[in-house]
């Protein structure tokens, strides 16, 4: 366990574990609502926040959080009011956010392309103890929402119209999911980078649902997968000179492929079992009502 010795590694591992837990816990609701790419959109918007942080010489993390939250709220509003051309409006928001970020970073004195790259693809080894404090706070908020309100969020993500008729505050809950996703994006920004954030929210969930049959198991399994790949990716990048963000995402995809291969025989045996069950049922039919060819005999 030599990799645990350097303090930067301890901070990196802590940040990675937190992201591995919270990203799938938000992502599962996004996937359930069939908005798997929402995290990607928020990541693009957060770029403007990073640029603004450099330009104003304030903390890019907090600035990115503020801009990402604002962007996520605007995305929710577009979803409510502009259903017809919602996709176009979202595209404007995504690419506007990305372009704004690049422009602002170039305008600032402290920003450089190297800085930009560290936010686009993550820079786990430069996580400071201040960063750890803010990451812990934000992660606690995310977990409070995704675990504490799991029944409500499940209902809203499963069937929005029905949730409204059960009296749930659907708009408030949707906004909360959007804000939570935005917070998760900015937390994960340091670990995997803005361009790969969405992968960590979606791929563990996609992998988990290959073998799970319930929401609860999907949730737990995706968090386990998320934590495992972020830890493994971080440790790998300590021994081999590879970028942690990309390693983590590729590991997650490897898990997805492995579980998919595993799921195929599993599904086949389940199908065989239910087929056997339905055969038992059809055997009763000739007794109650003779089949046409039986009559002919």
């Amino acid at each position, binding site marked *: 366990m030599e990799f645990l010795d350097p303090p930067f590694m301890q901070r990196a591992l802590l940040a990675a574990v937190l992201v591995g837990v919270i990203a799938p816990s938000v992502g599962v609701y996004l996937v359930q609502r069939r908005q798997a790419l929402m995290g990607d959109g928020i990541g693009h918007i957060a770029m403007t926040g990073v640029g603004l942080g450099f330009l104003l010489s304030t903390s890019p993390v907090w600035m990115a959080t503020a801009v990402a939250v604002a962007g996520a709220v605007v995305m929710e509003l577009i979803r409510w009011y502009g259903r017809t051309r919602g996709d176009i409006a979202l595209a404007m928001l995504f690419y506007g956010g990305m372009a704004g970020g690049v422009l602002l970073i170039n305008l600032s004195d402290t920003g450089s392309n190297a800085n930009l790259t560290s936010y686009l693809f993550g820079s786990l080894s430069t996580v400071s103890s201040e960063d750890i404090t803010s990451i812990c706070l934000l992660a606690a908020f995310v977990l409070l929402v995704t675990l504490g309100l799991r029944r409500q969020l499940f209902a809203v993500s499963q069937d929005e119209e029905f949730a409204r008729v059960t009296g*749930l505050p659907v708009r408030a809950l949707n906004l909360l999911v959007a804000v939570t996703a935005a917070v998760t994006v900015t937390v994960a920004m340091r670990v995997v980078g803005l361009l790969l954030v969405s992968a960590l929210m979606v791929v563990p969930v996609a992998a988990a649902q290959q073998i799970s049959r319930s929401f609860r198991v999907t949730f737990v399994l995706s968090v386990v997968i998320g934590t495992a790949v972020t830890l493994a990716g971080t440790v790998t990048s300590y021994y081999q000179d590879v970028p942690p963000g990309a390693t983590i995402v590729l590991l997650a995809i490897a898990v997805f492929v492995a579980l998919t291969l595993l799921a195929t025989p599993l599904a086949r045996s389940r199908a065989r079992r239910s087929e056997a069950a339905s055969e038992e049922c059809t055997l009763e039919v000739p007794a109650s009502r003779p089949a046409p060819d039986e009559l002919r005999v």
Partner: protein
Amino acid sequence: MPETGSTTAEPVMALRGATATLGARPVLRGIDLTVHRGEVAALLGANGSGKSTAVRSVIGQVPLTGGSVELFGTPLRRFRGWARIGYVPQRTTAAGGVPATIREVVTSGRLSRTRLGLIRRADRAAVDRAIELVGLADRAKDPVDALSGGQHQRVLIARALAAEPELLIMDEPMAGVDLASQEILAATLREQVAAGATVLLVLHELGPLEPLIDRAIVLRDGCVMHDGPPPKALGQHALPGHDHVHPHAATGPVRTGLLS
């Protein structure tokens, strides 16, 4: 559970002078519709007659451009007793983007009876009862995306029943449902009605539910054309494939030459 034997004519749901538009097209053109406690009312009509819009406006899913809605004597805007209403949307599937079991989906219908979403033992029992009612007890742990159309519909009805509602609102519960499921649904509904529930159904045809229905409201082009006992002729005319409803009250008996 609803009180048994309460036959007071208290209006459970009232739609007065309701108008609504979809885009620029008027869909409801001044509908008056009152459902009293213990009644089983069916809203009938051809496609595009406004029957779905009418029920969806009752639960606030379609905004009215005029008129008013009252639920249990409270204007919709101030209505908060959502646990008293069980809603079955017109849907072909109960599945979302992530696998979920029948029990998980049905449990979401119980939330209106819980505080802060805490599921207690009584809530679990109610969910079990609802699943049992629609005959899916042995499949409660199965994912909903592995079910047939009729079974999906049964899950959606169990979800509505989980809150033990006084008023059941169902939008085309029989659409795309196989015969076996139709019979289970009719039996479930019969049980609810016997226990005192009020039911408002949107139907394309009376079908196997016919003996249960006290009152039929026939809509055409956003107007009420018939309101009373289910028209007998409708039973024969409303076979699958028949898109037309003949509101006899408005047009008089159809002269077929068979009776004269």
